[in-house]
């Protein structure tokens, strides 16, 4: 009997997790007659590639896709350029001095986006940055920088100080220590944080909603079709956005630590 409840619980969790994703795939491959009816079947009866072909041909895919890719790529590069040195320095400052900066970064991550996006959107209109890739990259960095700094801080904390001190005794300057000791040891962590940076820009919605009005990003396209009851297009665009994120999440399972995502302050 105990065994039965165990499997029942497992089955419930699996259905709960898998059902919405299954429905997304199903809708993107279903003929219209199966969804627009009073009683849409849950099992996939007929498969059609019609919506995928239409989305690829419609001309609504390539511009948002290239915008999302470009913005995510440059957001990643620029965020790392600022966050890697900062996180490294923070990890080498005594905790009692570093804590105020760490709290500042922590707070920056918790602030309401609508409150930041509002004045930025007003100034970007004046500066001609609205609807530009540069404007959106600058805004996405607001979201990505605190998260990436956070991850990198815990990465650099694992690089042992003793190794650096040994190099220092041997007469190595700071530039050499960073280049030859810290960066190689932190490289896997830096790559992980780069992937996170890319994904946090790739699926960003709020800043894009304020700042990308003429040319949309992929997440905005989902919203665009939801508002027009374009069920199949919304499902197809959803699948396009979700697939890379899903693959990376599954591969990086072991690196998904609670502290990365939840931002716990640890001493």
């Amino acid at each position, binding site marked *: 009997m105990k065994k039965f409840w165990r499997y029942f619980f497992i089955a419930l969790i699996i259905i709960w*997790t898998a*059902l919405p994703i299954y429905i*997304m795939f199903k809708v993107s491959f279903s003929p219209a007659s199966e969804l627009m009816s009073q009683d849409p079947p849950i099992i996939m009866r007929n498969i059609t590639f019609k919506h995928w072909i239409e989305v690829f041909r419609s001309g609504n895919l390539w511009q948002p896709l290239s915008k999302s890719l470009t913005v995510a790529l440059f957001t990643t590069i620029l965020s790392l350029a600022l966050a890697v*040195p900062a996180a490294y320095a923070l990890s080498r400052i005594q905790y009692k001095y570093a804590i105020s900066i760490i709290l500042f970064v922590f707070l920056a991550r918790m602030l309401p986006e609508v409150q*930041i996006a509002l*004045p930025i959107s007003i100034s970007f209109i004046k500066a001609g940055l609205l609807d530009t890739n540069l404007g959106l990259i600058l805004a996405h960095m607001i979201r990505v920088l605190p998260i990436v700094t956070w991850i990198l801080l815990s990465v650099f904390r694992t690089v042992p100080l003793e190794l650096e001190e040994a190099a220092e005794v041997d007469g190595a300057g700071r530039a050499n220590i960073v280049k030859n000791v810290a960066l190689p040891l932190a490289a896997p962590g830096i790559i992980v944080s780069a992937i996170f940076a890319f994904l946090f820009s790739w699926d960003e919605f709020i800043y894009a909603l304020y700042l990308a009005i003429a040319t949309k990003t992929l997440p905005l396209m989902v919203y665009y079709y939801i508002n027009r009851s374009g069920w199949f297009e919304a499902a197809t665009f959803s699948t396009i*956005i*979700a697939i890379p994120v*899903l693959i990376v999440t599954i591969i990086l399972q072991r690196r998904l630590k609670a502290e990365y995502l*939840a931002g716990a302050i640890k001493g």
Partner: protein
Amino acid sequence: MLKSKHYWKIFFLAPLLLYLTIFTLIPISRSIFLSFQQKSGGLTFSNYAWLFSNFQFREAFVNTISITILALALELLLAFSIALFITGGGKKRILQALILIPLGIPTIVVASNMRYIFDTDGFLNQILTRLHLIEIPINWLSGGALTLFSVVIADMWKVTPLMMLILLAGLERIPKELFEAARIDGSSFWQELRFIILPLMKPFMTMALIIRGIDTFRIFELPLALAGESFKVLSEFAFFEYRNYNNPYTAAASGTLLFVMILVSVLIYIRVSGAQKETA
């Protein structure tokens, strides 16, 4: 004073701090300032007075608080059950890999998927009809308590795994000897839960709740994409005031209120985590 061999740290930190000042600190301050301004200029409280006299705003405020309380309670319960089930490792790790998948689904995609379920022609109504529980399809997404429920379910689906990860990290820190000792004394599972697990998990639960509470205060995509203007929360209200009604002042005031709620939560969090560090 700072020794010259530490100067590099300032150069390394300065770009990040400068960026966060220009693109986070200053915008937040400007929004707060805007919330006390009017088109005609001068400082005023009228934006706040208008907000609190506005029925839709009061509703958005109540919705935000209700979603937070309901979602946190359900997420904590579900996440804790799953964490208790998974802890101990072994084959259950395969299950864990599956459970974490929603973390990899972008929020707007979650909203879109949930529409297929909660729409009037959606799958939930269909299942309920087939089970003969309802005769007429329920309109889940037209506002009110049903929409609140739909938003909470959508939020639960997306973030329960995150809560589970935090609680799992806590569970795995409980020393095994405690359970062994309890078992020698012949304790039942419920006794272990009440006298060992819950007391030791309290700090993790508190922190998970505050962190997740801050996220839920800011909830935006899910109610926006599920129900649009028929179900508002605070951040949505701020967006619509600006985009649809072209009023940055009331938008800023509504955002400032959200900011204050979050700031208070962050301060509580810092206190709690600091207190925990001292006792740990």
